[in-house]
């Protein structure tokens, strides 16, 4: 390295306008997608080639890249809008009409995008490492699953047969308890903002929350007992028109669980938090596996309803979808809208007082608090917001699968979502969506495709058949991407700035001595400036 000139900042030359390329790409990939999922074409001479699972996976991936390019490339706004909207609203459903697996895949991708966006708030923005995120997903799924399936009538039947001492008075008492305790909690909360908490006040608060819980249980129980007579009428669960109400309820339920889990544990730092959330995630799964009456335990709940939207169905029918595809198409559109809303919420929160507070906490908890940011409250908001996204997606997942069992909510899911966030670029919204897309595509299309395509190839020994080496391939991809792009596929701008040094120092740190200056995050210390890593040590997930 003799360059006297420092590596010039790779000052991006103004990107060339790629409108034409974009539109061209869109047209080609759409045509490919439609062709490769069209029976007539498939039955034709090209069919053999197009059917190749690997090729198919590639076509799907390329097609989805449309949306990415529409976002990334410099092109005329109309073209970007056309490609983005066209891909998602027009071409994809059309191809999905022929091949529902595309819809299933897209829904799955969008579900994971939403989960990743939610986890991104918790991990990427607020810096809280949560390894039990899937718990909230489960809460949402079961909230809808229990009510929109035969489970409901089983529960009611049970209470009908075992009313205990429950009657209308219980209901009244339960409600009374709820109102009183909730009111007193709110009052105490107000107070505590003004005056210093004492031991007495925190005990009182604990007592009140306990009372609230008891009240809720009593109320629900009483309702169940009193409603037992309805059991027969609800044999397949509540009316699917309740879907919309439950969309809100699942958000709330997950957020409440988020707060309940968060309250005791958010004082913990970094990896202590990680392991405890992991544990609580497992607790929720084990509970789901054991509370047979409510969750049907390991047997799982099925069939679960979806929404009934007559006008949508007739629209879908008009568009040539068959009846059994209505609900998938509906869920696809719904999930698209919901992800859009979530994205909007994310962006808006990020650029708000709360978003700044999250990042401040992530950067330096002590300083953040000393600047007037209430730690627990701010973290709780992050936790609950992330949880609520997971909750609503859980519900959509339940409706899509029509079957849920605790198996779907294990630790691997949490880790998977985390890897989506990091892979895509922590803190970057388009990044985590891309991360979710890549990982889901890999898991549901590309890797299985590899397996299917190679299954009948005689010369590959069974032991090293790619189909059986999915973990290995996935692992290799994960490691490779992270080594090549530690900041993620579509990094956050903030992150890029932060990593700026390292990237450029790489060249002169061949021996690793200069690079070592930035311990951990690549910040370099200044005189008397707290080495940021020191907080990281005890926590501060970054």
């Amino acid at each position, binding site marked *: *390295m*003799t*360059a*006297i000139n*420092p*590596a*010039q*900042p790779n000052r991006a030359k103004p990107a060339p306008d790629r409108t034409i390329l974009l539109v061209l790409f869109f047209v080609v990939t759409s045509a490919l997608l439609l062709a490769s999922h069209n029976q007539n074409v498939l039955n034709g001479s090209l069919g053999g080639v197009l059917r190749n699972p690997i090729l198919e996976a590639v076509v799907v991936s390329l097609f989805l890249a449309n949306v990415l390019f529409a976002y990334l490339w410099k092109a005329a706004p109309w073209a970007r809008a056309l490609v983005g909207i066209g891909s998602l609203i027009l071409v994809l459903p059309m191809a999905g009409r022929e091949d529902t697996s595309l819809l299933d895949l897209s829904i799955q991708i969008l579900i994971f995008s939403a989960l990743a966006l939610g986890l991104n708030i918790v991990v990427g923005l607020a810096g809280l490492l949560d390894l039990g995120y899937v718990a909230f997903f489960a809460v949402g799924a079961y909230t809808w699953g229990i009510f929109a399936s035969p489970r409901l009538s089983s529960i009611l039947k049970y209470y009908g047969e075992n009313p205990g001492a429950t009657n209308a008075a219980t209901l009244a008492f339960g409600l009374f308890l709820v109102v009183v305790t909730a009111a007193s909690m709110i009052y105490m909360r107000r107070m505590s903002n003004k005056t210093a908490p004492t031991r007495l006040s925190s005990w009182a608060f604990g007592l009140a929350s306990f009372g609230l819980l008891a009240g809720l249980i009593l109320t629900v129980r009483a309702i169940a007992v009193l409603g037992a007579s309805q059991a027969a009428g609800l044999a397949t669960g509540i009316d699917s028109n309740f879907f919309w109400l439950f969309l809100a309820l699942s958000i709330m339920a997950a957020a409440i669980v988020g707060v309940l889990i968060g309250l005791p544990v958010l004082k913990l730092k970094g990896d202590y938090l990680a392991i405890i959330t992991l544990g609580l995630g497992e607790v929720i799964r084990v509970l789901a596996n054991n509370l047979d009456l409510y969750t049907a335990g390991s047997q799982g709940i099925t069939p679960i309803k979806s929404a009934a939207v007559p006008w949508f169905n007739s629209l879908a029918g008009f568009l040539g979808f068959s009846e059994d595809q209505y609900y998938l198409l509906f869920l696809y559109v719904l999930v698209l809208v919901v992800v859009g809303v979530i994205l909007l919420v994310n962006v808006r929160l990020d650029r708000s007082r709360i978003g700044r507070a999250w990042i401040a906490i992530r950067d330096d908890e002590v300083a953040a608090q000393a600047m007037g940011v209430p730690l627990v409250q701010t973290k709780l908001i992050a936790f609950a917001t992330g949880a609520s996204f997971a909750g609503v997606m859980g519900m959509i997942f339940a409706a899509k699968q029509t079957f849920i069992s605790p198996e779907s909510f294990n630790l691997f899911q949490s880790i998977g979502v985390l890897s989506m966030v990091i892979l895509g670029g922590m803190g970057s919204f388009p990044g985590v969506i891309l991360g979710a897309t890549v990982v889901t595509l890999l898991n549901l299309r590309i890797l299985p495709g590899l397996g299917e395509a190679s299954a009948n190839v005689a010369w590959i020994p069974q032991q090293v058949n790619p189909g059986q080496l999915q973990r290995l391939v996935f692992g290799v991809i994960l490691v490779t991407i992270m080594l090549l792009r530690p900041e993620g596929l579509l990094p956050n701008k903030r992150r890029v700035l932060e990593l*700026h*040094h390292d*990237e*450029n*120092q790489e060249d*002169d*740190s061949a*021996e*690793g*001595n*200069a690079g*070592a*200056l930035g311990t951990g995050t690549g910040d*370099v*210390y*200044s*005189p*008397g*400036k707290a*080495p940021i890593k*020191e907080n990281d040590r005890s926590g501060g997930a970054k």
Partner: protein
Amino acid sequence: MPEAATLHKTPTTTEMLALTDVHTYYGHIHALKGISMTVNEGEIVALIGGNGAGKTTTLRTVSGMMKPKHGTLTYQGQNAAGIPAHVIMGRGMSHVPEGRRIFPQLTVRENLEVGGYTVLDKALIEQRIQEGFGFFPRLKEREHQLGGTMSGGEQQMLAIARALMVNPKLLLLDEPSMGLSPLFVEAIFDIIVKLNRERGMTILLVEQNANMALEVAHRAYVMQTGEIKLSGKASDIAQDESVRKAYLGDE
């Protein structure tokens, strides 16, 4: 301190450290723009300059924490550019870094022991620990306190004592007086002078407290925005109008 100058043993003219046209970067930031300087054996050399001038960067480059992109750097006649810090330190150099950088979870004593990592003789380590306690009695009082819970000034004392554990030939001091009470600032300068006079220790001193630094130093370099603006005998520099205006707070 009128006596300070007379205390000095006459330094030799053997080069201990030499930088020629050294360029160092933080990413794109060009922090050192071609620095040349020498430190002779037995000398105290002061390096002064405003915030962000590149003093710390110079020390970091010398001690191997950073690699110069261009230029030569020799220490005791051997190339030292781009050699990792732990190797250079093994050759009898010691660095009191900016910001003290105490090991927060090690006790005061353990910090000192780690400071003497390259010393293999246990008795010698113990002897030097006691010596450090002699310089800074507060450290002895707090022998088993965790480094991280010490006050700012206490940490500074610990950082200096830690650097002395290897009885270095060349000592790099980055703002040793920062955060110290006036009493201790004087003590520190006394120690610097003493080390130099009694042990012949060569010292490269970065200081904001330029008045005192120039008092104890033989020679001095003045830095500004990554370049050396002025160099010469410390006493001459101390008289220089522009220096007095820019760094010594004279109106």
